[in-house]
């Protein structure tokens, strides 16, 4: 399963057009506490969150996450997107809730 294959089922818009969507999604993480994500994250995870500040990209990049999925249609700061492009982390956004997004991700076979 790669990031591109999540686009339709999770109703995602890509906010970082220049990033690589062939990155493999090997797990998922739903959390808005960066401290927890730092402690529990694993490489390849798709991270669903409503946090949108710069540090989200730093954490995603250090953990080598496959992508960041912003839920609830939250606004994302341009600085965050610029940093994501620089680090090569795809940032996608959906109007759906974190709960629905994680359910759909799980149903796609991402465990």
């Amino acid at each position, binding site marked *: 399963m790669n990031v591109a294959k999540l686009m339709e089922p999770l109703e995602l818009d890509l906010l970082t057009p220049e990033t690589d969507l062939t990155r493999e999604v090997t797990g998922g993480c739903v959390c*808005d*506490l*960066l*401290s*927890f*994500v*730092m*402690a529990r994250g694993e*490489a390849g995870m798709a991270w669903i969150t409503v*946090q949108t*500040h*710069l*540090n989200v*990209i*730093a*954490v995603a*990049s*250090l*953990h*080598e996450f496959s992508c960041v999925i912003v839920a609830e249609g939250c606004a994302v700061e341009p*600085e965050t997107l610029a940093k994501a492009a620089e*680090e090569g982390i795809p940032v996608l956004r959906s109007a759906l809730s974190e709960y629905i997004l994680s359910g759909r991700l799980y149903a796609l076979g991402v465990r």
Partner: protein
Amino acid sequence: MERTEKETTYQETRRVQKGDFAAAGQISASYKNMLKRLGVDSKVVRRLAIASYEAEINLAIHTLGGSMTIIVYPDHIFLVVEDTGPGIADIALAMQEGYSTAPEEVRMLGFGAGMGLPNMKRCSDTFEITSELGSGTTIRMGFNLLN
């Protein structure tokens, strides 16, 4: 840490300013790139980058500012985190997962859950912390490059 300078592959010290969350992660990202270039095992690189990011965030949140020094030896890496205060009153309490003195605005960013120090300890092979109220805190983390 009784090593001769000759054995050192690389050494670098960088400053972290109080409250500078926007810059947090830059030092860790540079460590990650540098260690990858040196051919260090990717799992060790990942552990070190996570520990150093926690240290960067802690310096920005809790201290008056400080520095991070990385010392790379052929078989070992040390990461030394020093700050100029205010110091930790109760280290045992600070090491407990879930305990934090972080202010509300930091918690709004998703930090301050009391995971930083325990996560540094978990990610490193050796972990030492000393602190004195009024003068500051020093954390020394070691990462084994053998095995």
